[in-house]
Structure formats: structure tokens, C-alpha cells
């Protein structure tokens, strides 16, 4: 039987205001926590894969008790097994520790297909998918934008600088997803009732010592006052500012 794992992370709602106080982002000021948007696409495809193959899915999250919500939400969509990795002694984990924790759990799950988002919406790093793949000795396709999981041989499409490539990989493999036009399924009342009964397994893991220390969080630099320029001859200067000052192009 095919086994699928999905890695889900709980993050502040992407429209939430982020405030910094005493050198740290004030997480207590965040009222809405959601499943990281890219992970939702991974979950959607994983469920499509499950429906076509009869696989079972294990959803795994690393986070404090409030992160149970992302697992319950996944359960409402039909995910069977729910695991939360956590230890109350953990604070801000570095990439190495996160990957160690997730890899330990994944080794136990023995998943053939590991689905996750291309990056989390809070740390924006994109290290977890390939990093976990490396630790588990698996291949990894990153930033998948299209897929066909209906047949015996699933295939996944990624963008390259010149076009698209479709790959038909052999499991075990890690797959990371970007946002696409796909409509995400909604839960229904029956699923939510099932989620209510679903059991979340809470486990710890040996993650070693932190190598990275957080010194401070800071609000982004204040934007300078708006400036007005005259005439088309100012366009090159504005483009330069967009590049060097605003850093948006």
C-alpha cells in the first residue's frame, strides 16, 4: 500500500500585522493562525493522490499545541494519521533541528511520497523539503506547479528558466509545491465531525543543540518619504531606486 506523508506548518495568517516588541516578533498579538498557504497546495495534491491510489496519509506538524489546528483541519479533509512533533523545551529551532525532528518522524512513517510546501509563509526559507530529502537519502522535486497523480505513475511539473519540465519519479521522494490556480477543497460538516474524533499523536525527537542564535527581530527599515520626479528623464533614476533602495526588482 502506498503511504503518503504531508508536512504542514502553522503560521500567522498572511494578512496579519506583524509587530516587534523587545526585539522579538510578538506572537501573542497574532490572532489568527493558519496552515501555511503553500502547504495547503501540497495537502490538496496529496489528497488527490490518495483518492486515486487508495493510499493513507500521515500529516505531520512541528509546533506547540496550538498547531493541532492544522492537523485537525487536515483530518477534516480526510487525512487519517496525525502527528505533532514537539517538546516544551524547544524554542526557536534552527533548520538543522527542524529537519532532524521531521526526519526522525518520517523514518518511522516510511512514506513513499512526502509532500510539503516550497517554503513556509513565516520563515520563507525553503530548506525543509530538500533538507529532509537529503537526510532521508531521497530525491526531491522543488516548486512543483502542475501534476498528474491519477495514474499508476504520478508525474510532476516544475518550471525551469527556459520552460517547464515534467518528471515521473520513482518513490521514495520529497515533493515541494508552489501556489497554483488549483481550487483547494473545502472541508464539510461530516469531515469536521470525523476530525473531532481523530487522535493526534504527540511525539518528541532528538534534535541536538542549536547552532543558530536569534539576536533580535527588527521591524523593516522605514521607507523614506515619498518623492516626486519630473519627466521621462527621471525614469532611469526611479528604476535605480527600485533596485537599490526599495529592492523590489
Amino acid at each position, binding site marked *: 500500500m502506498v503511504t503518503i506523508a504531508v508536512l504542514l506548518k502553522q503560521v*500567522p495568517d*498572511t494578512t496579519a500585522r*506583524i509587530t*516587534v516588541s523587545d526585539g522579538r*516578533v510578538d506572537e501573542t498579538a497574532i490572532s489568527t493562525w493558519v496552515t501555511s498557504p503553500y502547504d495547503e497546495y501540497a495537502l490538496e495534491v496529496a489528497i488527490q493522490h490518495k483518492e486515486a491510489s487508495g493510499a493513507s496519509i500521515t500529516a505531520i506538524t512541528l509546533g506547540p499545541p496550538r498547531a493541532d489546528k492544522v492537523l485537525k483541519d487536515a483530518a477534516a479533509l480526510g487525512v487519517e494519521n496525525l502527528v505533532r512533533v514537539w517538546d516544551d523545551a524547544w524554542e526557536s529551532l*534552527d*533548520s*538543522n533541528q527542524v529537519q532532524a525532528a521531521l526526519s526522525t518522524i518520517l523514518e518511522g512513517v516510511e512514506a513513499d511520497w512526502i509532500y510539503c510546501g516550497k517554503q513556509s*509563509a*513565516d520563515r*520563507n*526559507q*525553503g*530548506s*525543509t523539503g*530538500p*533538507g529532509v*530529502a*537529503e*537526510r532521508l537519502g531521497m*530525491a*526531491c522535486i*522543488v*516548486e512543483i506547479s502542475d501534476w498528474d497523480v491519477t495514474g499508476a505513475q504520478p*508525474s510532476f511539473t516544475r*518550471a525551469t528558466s527556459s*520552460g*517547464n*519540465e*515534467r*518528471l515521473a519519479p*520513482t518513490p521514495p521522494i520529497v515533493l515541494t509545491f508552489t*501556489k497554483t*490556480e488549483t481550487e483547494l477543497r473545502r472541508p464539510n460538516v461530516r469531515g469536521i465531525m470525523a476530525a473531532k474524533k481523530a487522535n493526534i499523536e504527540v511525539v518528541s525527537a532528538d534534535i541536538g543543540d*542549536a*547552532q*543558530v*542564535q*536569534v*539576536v*533580535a*527581530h*527588527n*521591524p*523593516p527599515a522605514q*521607507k523614506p518619504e*515619498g518623492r*516626486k520626479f519630473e519627466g*521621462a528623464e*527621471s*525614469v*532611469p533614476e*526611479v*528604476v535605480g531606486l*527600485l533596485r*537599490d533602495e*526599495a*529592492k*523590489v*526588482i
Partner: protein
Amino acid sequence: MDITIIAETQDGGLHPVTAQLVGAASSLGASLTVICPGGAGGEEACGISGVGKVLAVTGDCFATFDGGAWAEALDAVAGGDLVIGAAPTSGRDICSRIAARRGVSIIQDVINLSPGLNITHPIYSGKANQDLTVTGNCVLTLRANTFPPAPSGGTAQLSTVQQSGDVRLAVAEAFARASERLDVTDADIIISGGRGMGHPDNFRHLYEVADVIGAAVGASRAAVDTWEEIPHSLQVGQTGKTVNPSLYIAVGISGAIQHLAGMRTSKYIVAINKDPEAPIFKVADYGIVCTWEEAIPVLKEELSKLT
């Protein structure tokens, strides 16, 4: 300290970001080795000032992109206490794996770097920055166009090493990307036109700019209501879409409150409008008082130069 830089390559040569990686690494006062995956751009890399050594790594695995295989090959030849790559997709993939192979941490999308290893990178999509220090070795990827490039004038030695990795991904099919138009709500850069565009055909100019920088095209309601060629799906504003891109360029849009309601949280706003009194200038970070007919061709040309 030894630093290994993984060159970013494109079309068989070096991507300009590589010189920026060198520029950033030079400030750490260490000996620099640049390794070129697949051997591309080796000669060019030797010409970057500050580079001590260039290794062109050639091997079968570099024929297609398999982050695992590339990381295996590169890690085998890369020494270095610190490995630095660029932050685009492939760089992030390879560097994550090299870090995992070494059991060290990776910090992606770094925007500030100083000796002692003080590192800054954005979190929450740029709504905050995080300052870090690292004990021991680590792997970093740096954001493009953030660090000044090292000048040319280097005279490093080029050596070629044969090294491959275990390839586990095969491309079943390569094909052209359908040129789908990005939806405004998905785009990181938006260029919107208003009634000041004069005629719906003139939106062509906006699309041309959009193509250069991978932007989506949006519109004001006046444009959508006046011209049926401009679909409602482009409308930004209170009764259209709410957008939150890094860059919003408003062209021939006056800046009515209902329009602002949909785009005022954009990180940076550029306005191009011929009327210096137009309210859009009140929210613009960079306002250009000018007709679009004059401004857009220059904008397109300047943006093309960047990429």
C-alpha cells in the same frame, strides 16, 4: 576562514549575481573559492576580483537539475567553513542539501552579512527582519541585488574537477511554458492602467513592461467600465481585487479612494501621471509627473537592462 561560493550559472555562463556573492563574501575577509556547477562560467569567475580559486566541476549529473545529485557532487569538492550560494530556487535546493549533508544550519535569503558572522534575513515576507549569529559552520544563500558586486580584475586560477553525483530525477518531457497571464492577486509586481491610458489598445504597452519583469497587469475601475476590452478580473480596488504586491505601478490612475482601498498596502508604489496634483502622488513612494506615452518606453528599456 575558508569560504566556498557556489556560482549561479545561466545559459552556459555566469549569472551576474555571482559577483554579488563574491562581493558579500569578501567583506568577511576570508579566502574565497568559487565552484561552478557543470563547469559553466569558470573563466568569467576567475575575472572577479577577490576570488582566490575557481573550481569548474564537471560531471554527468549536471545535464539536468537534480538538487540531490548536484549537492553531492559539489559537496565532494567544496571545502570551506562557510558555503554561500544564491537564493533562487535551485540555489536554495542545493544549499539546503549541502547543509544537511554537513549537519550544519542553512540560512536563506540573507540581506545583510558581517564578520563574526552576523546575519540578517527577512521573515514574515519582509514584515520583519531577523538578526542571527551562528556557532560553527553554516551554509547561506544571499538575496540577489542586495550586496554590491565585486569588481572585475581578478586573476584566479581555474581548475577543472571531474565529479558527479547519484542522479535520481529524470525529465520525462520538457516543454514550453504556456504564457499564462498572472492574476493580480498572485503577482509580486503589478502594473495597472487607468482612464489616462486613453484607449484600450494602449494597455499593450503595459503588457510589454509586465513581460519584462514578470508582472501582472491591473486596471482602475474607470478603465474597466469604459472599455469592454479590459476585463473586470483586472480591476483593483474596493469593488475589484485587493492586492498586496512588493511593487505597484499606477499609470494614468488618479488615485481615487476606492482604488487606493485595493492597493495601498503595496510595499512600494510608483505613480506615472501627467497631473502633478493627482491624489495618487500622496501614496506614491516614487511619483513621476509625466505622460505615460513618454515614460513607458523608457521604463521598459531600463527594466530590460536589469535582467
